[in-house]
């Protein structure tokens, strides 16, 4: 090979290699989320800042989080996963991880440490409920009630068992059409100590007990399946009290100014976060990793709380939570994790429900149709 040829060849390689280096990261991402106010908070807090720093990256949203588990499985079977980052609740993340559809990752490698240098695995701590789950927010399922429908001369309800007290607080209830949360509340109000709830619920008698308690309000309950149902039912005065996500109640109370108040008692904490689909092509994976590293920092998570009343999953983010972007009210007191709200709480028991979900759901649905 002559010198000239070598030069030509190497410059050709350089020419090919240069754009390749730039292409290491894909320049588009498909992010899956829930739509509505929640997705908007992610757009404002994560995606817009990221796009400002990386103007050539385009982001496509897919509002499919509701059926993400099924769709991801279908995509995986078809061998064509088009999603890059998927927002799911923790229990779905566990299911996806079990199915091998979500990527396992090392928190300290993928996620940035806190500003004081605490490694991510410690900063997120217990929130890392699955090897695939990148926690974002803590939300809670809690109960709201119509303040104007409280009977005259009665104190407004302060504890969860008001749900089952039709004598003092008559009126319709709205509860989710699934066993999770309802069974726990039923047992708790039937006199089971909080720490024993899951032990009792494991037994046939315990399950019967929970159903018997739910039986007392079954005829006065509207069963919801979409998060928007209860806020609407409350706003229409269809129900007196109902369970839903705390962020939904926040918007009914603070943004829509409805006569609704919240019952933080026995709120059930749950987590929502990202998963990265398994087996992504390298360039797309690199882009997603970059995005996740930059947009799950202490500050980024705290920023999301400016747009929606869900608590950041990093413990270092809590002190940074500021005012609502539009309403200008302090958000800290509306966080489910705020000490005033979190006096009596329950943490969703993921491992337990992963086991009992199929069984109890069959029983619950059979109970509903009876």
């Amino acid at each position, binding site marked *: 090979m002559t010198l000239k040829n070598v030069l030509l060849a190497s410059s050709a390689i350089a020419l090919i290699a240069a754009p390749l280096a730039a292409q290491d990261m894909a320049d588009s991402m498909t992010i899956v989320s829930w739509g509505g106010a929640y997705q908007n908070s992610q757009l404002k807090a994560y995606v817009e800042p990221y796009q400002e720093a990386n103007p050539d990256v385009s982001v496509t949203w897919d509002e499919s989080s509701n059926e993400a*588990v099924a769709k991801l499985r279908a995509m995986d079977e078809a061998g064509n996963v088009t999603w890059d980052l998927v927002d799911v609740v923790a229990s779905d993340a566990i299911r996806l991880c*079990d199915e091998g559809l979500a990527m396992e990752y090392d928190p300290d490698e993928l996620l940035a440490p806190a500003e004081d240098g605490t490694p991510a695995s410690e900063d997120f701590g217990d929130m890392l409920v699955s090897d695939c789950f990148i926690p974002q927010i803590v939300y809670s399922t809690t109960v709201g009630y119509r303040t104007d429908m409280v009977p005259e001369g009665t104190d407004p309800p302060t504890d969860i068992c008001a749900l089952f007290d039709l004598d003092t607080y008559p009126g319709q209830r709205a509860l989710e059409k699934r066993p999770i949360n309802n069974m726990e509340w039923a047992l708790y109000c039937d006199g089971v100590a909080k720490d024993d709830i899951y032990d009792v619920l494991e037994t046939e008698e315990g399950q019967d007990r929970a159903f018997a308690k739910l039986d007392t309000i079954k005829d006065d309950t509207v069963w919801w399946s979409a998060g928007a149902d209860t806020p609407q039912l409350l706003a229409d005065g269809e129900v007196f009290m109902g369970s839903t996500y705390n962020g939904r109640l926040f918007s009914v109370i603070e943004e829509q100014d409805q006569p609704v108040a919240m019952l933080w008692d026995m709120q059930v904490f749950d987590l929502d976060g990202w998963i990265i689909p398994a087996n992504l092509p390298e360039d797309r994976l690199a882009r997603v990793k970059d995005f996740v590293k930059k947009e799950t920092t202490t500050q980024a998570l705290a920023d999301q709380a400016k747009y929606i009343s869900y608590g950041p999953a990093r413990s270092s983010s809590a002190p940074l939570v500021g005012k609502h972007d539009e309403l200008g009210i302090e958000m800290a007191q509306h966080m489910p994790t705020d000490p005033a709200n979190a006096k009596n709480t329950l943490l969703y028991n993921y491992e337990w429900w992963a086991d009992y979900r*199929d069984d109890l759901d069959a029983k619950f649905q*059979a*109970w509903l149709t009876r």
Partner: protein
Amino acid sequence: MSDIAESDDRISAEGSRDLKRSLNRALRAQKMRALMLIAPLLIFILVTFIAPIVDMLFRSVENEIVSDTLPRTVLALDDWEYTSGETPSEAVFAALYYDLFVAAELKEHTRLGSRLNYETTGISSLFRKSGRRVDRFDTDIYADQFTALDPAWGEPATWTMMSEALDDDPDALPETASALEGWHHLLKVERDDPATEAPADILFTALYRDLSAGAPGLNDGDLAAMTATARQAVDGFETVSIRDQFVDVDDSWLDPEIWGTIKAYAPKYTIGYFLKSVDYQLTPEGIEKQPEDQQIYIRLFVRTLVMSLTIMVSCIVLGYPVAFLLANLPMRYSNVLMILVLLPFWTSLLVRTSAWKVLLQNQGVINDILVWLHIVSESGRLALINNQTGTIIAMTHILLPFMILPLYSVMQTIPPTYMRAAKSLGATDWTAFWRVYFPQSVPGIGAGSILVFILAIGYYITPELVGGTSGIFISNRIAYHISSSLNWGLAAALGSILLVAVLMLYWAYDRIVGIDNVKLG
């Protein structure tokens, strides 16, 4: 003379045969041409419609995951009976150890766990926990003892040789051969090089078990000498019970129920999903009826059929007069009426359903008007939504155009002169309608009914939104199993039953009414 006649006959016979042949050829060419013309559509339908449906329905019996993930355990369980009431032997636990080790490395064990959890509660976490611990079992003492005996045991090359030797004669060290097979499968999937990967604990455990159980061993080569030495030494080895290792992770492994479930679902095909769809279950003891508190599907199937029929009948009752008006009014009125029929038809299904929510709910428009008119009292507001009434009202409205349009197109073809003729012969209005007009409109009713009924049977969004608990259909459960519980096998079984039920009803309809009597215009 007769010769000539005979040959004439032969000629004509030959001629007609030729003629037949060329006719056949022409016909075949024609058929082929016709087939070619429809080929694009046929292929399209086959590939994008029939094949996916068949594939999905096939899942209702497919169950390869158990024998694919735990091949050795399934084999070992052949000798175990659930009815014995005992926990399986150490050999079964060893087989499970090899299988689970490979599955956990490949992250397949949790998948199997969720599959078996549909049958027996608790298996999901049992597999997850055991998978997490299985590579930290105390069986590493075997590896230590073998390598202390001869460092060559720690070399990957030894095991490559072993695998080659055992390929020819797997019975020499049966468990080792089996464990090696799993190990190599793992390396292949992970794209690791067998020449460099340090041998896993399962190999030493299997070798120890083979040698201590007196397996014949290898006859020639360096390995024969090595195994012979090892055979002398294993009697003095420190041992560990694999069963205790599993029990240490979770004592559910002592529960015969768990093993019974694995055994019951070991075959590649199962009727378990279909049994579940009709409120039975496949348990280790055989087929049993589901306990009372879990029976739901039969009830939902019956409800789906009954409510779809109700909706169909109310569509006929409401749709017939409208179609009659459409067909018989002067053009300018009927056009306006037609637009009124079509307008909701073009509106989104969700919008129409949500509109019904606003109208029907307790504090909704209809109840408000009734209270205002003093027809019902404030406390006696009607429950029109979140029950069967709500589903029937909303779905009748949504499906009404599917009844009106076929009816209308059939009615349009009925000449008005027939009615006039009947009346001129002395029939009353009613007799003329009932004896002359109605029979001619029946094909339209048939077409509309089939359309409405089959559409209704598969609806799930509307029942989900307005049906509450008493107004939901079987399709709601199918949707739940597809998108939430990921139990696609059960969803497929429920779907297959629904499909067969519809086809049977269609067949019955064809038998009783005759499908030729159905007209869309």
